[in-house]
């Protein structure tokens, strides 16, 4: 079940270039924590912290394979976040920009009778 809090976590997780790069890497296939750390030249604890954020946001999954932990992409969250909430927010924020601009022109509302909704 996806709550607004989970979606907030998804967007917070995506608002970081390292984490987006990790997701892009995982889009090519699952990887161990070591494999993920290598191209970023980051210490393992740093990578682990990023992975924990991504996991909480349901953007990645982890599974234990023998002694290693393998990470994989969970695209459902990404697709869902992309598909509605984000677009809807962008649509209305940008529409409010337009309204603000329209109002700033300072034009009076039309004088013709308009209050039919009594």
């Amino acid at each position, binding site marked *: *079940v*996806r*709550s*607004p809090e989970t*979606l907030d976590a998804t*967007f917070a997780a*995506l608002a970081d270039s390292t984490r*987006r790069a990790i*997701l*892009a890497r995982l*889009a*090519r296939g699952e990887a161990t924590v070591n494999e993920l750390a290598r191209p970023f030249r980051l210490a393992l604890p740093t990578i682990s912290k990023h992975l924990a954020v991504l996991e909480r946001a349901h953007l990645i999954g982890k599974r234990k394979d023998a002694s290693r932990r393998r990470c994989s*992409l969970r*695209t459902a969250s*990404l*697709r869902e*976040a*992309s*598909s*509605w*909430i*984000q*677009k*809807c*927010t*962008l*649509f*209305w*924020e*940008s*529409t*409010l*920009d*337009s*309204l*603000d*601009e*329209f*109002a*700033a022109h300072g034009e*009076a*509302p*039309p004088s013709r009778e*308009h*209050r*039919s*909704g*009594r």
Partner: protein
Amino acid sequence: MTMTANPEGQRDRIVGVRRRIRATRAFLFAAWTDPACFVRWFGPKAWTVERCEIDARPGGTWRAWLKRGDGASVCIGGVYTEVEPERRIVFTWDNDERGRPTEIMSLVTVEFAEMADGVEVSITHRELSTGQAVDMDVGWNSTLDSLAAYVSAEL
């Protein structure tokens, strides 16, 4: 009440945005309900309203044809469920090009609240159907869109 007929197990989703705008409630109400005004501003930046039909009273319908500079177009519309002059407008939202009511609908509430330095316009957009959301893709790109596209392409 919980939605039981919900095969995908998703909850209703809600988006809320608000902005304080220096204008009167009368002006803002007209901006939303008078077609002559609505046509001049509605939609995200870079989009223009080609034409619109607005009958802003409970049970009345609205429909707007939006176009972007590069030729992309979209049609949005719905039915007003509440119209309280200068205070509150509630309408359904669908993307059917021919303007027929669809099963996939969401609900938009626009409210105007008087503030010391203008009017706060609040927009709440919520889904009515839990299984599927109305497509909000009117063609802009965002970091997230690009990433999602990238991920889809890579899979």
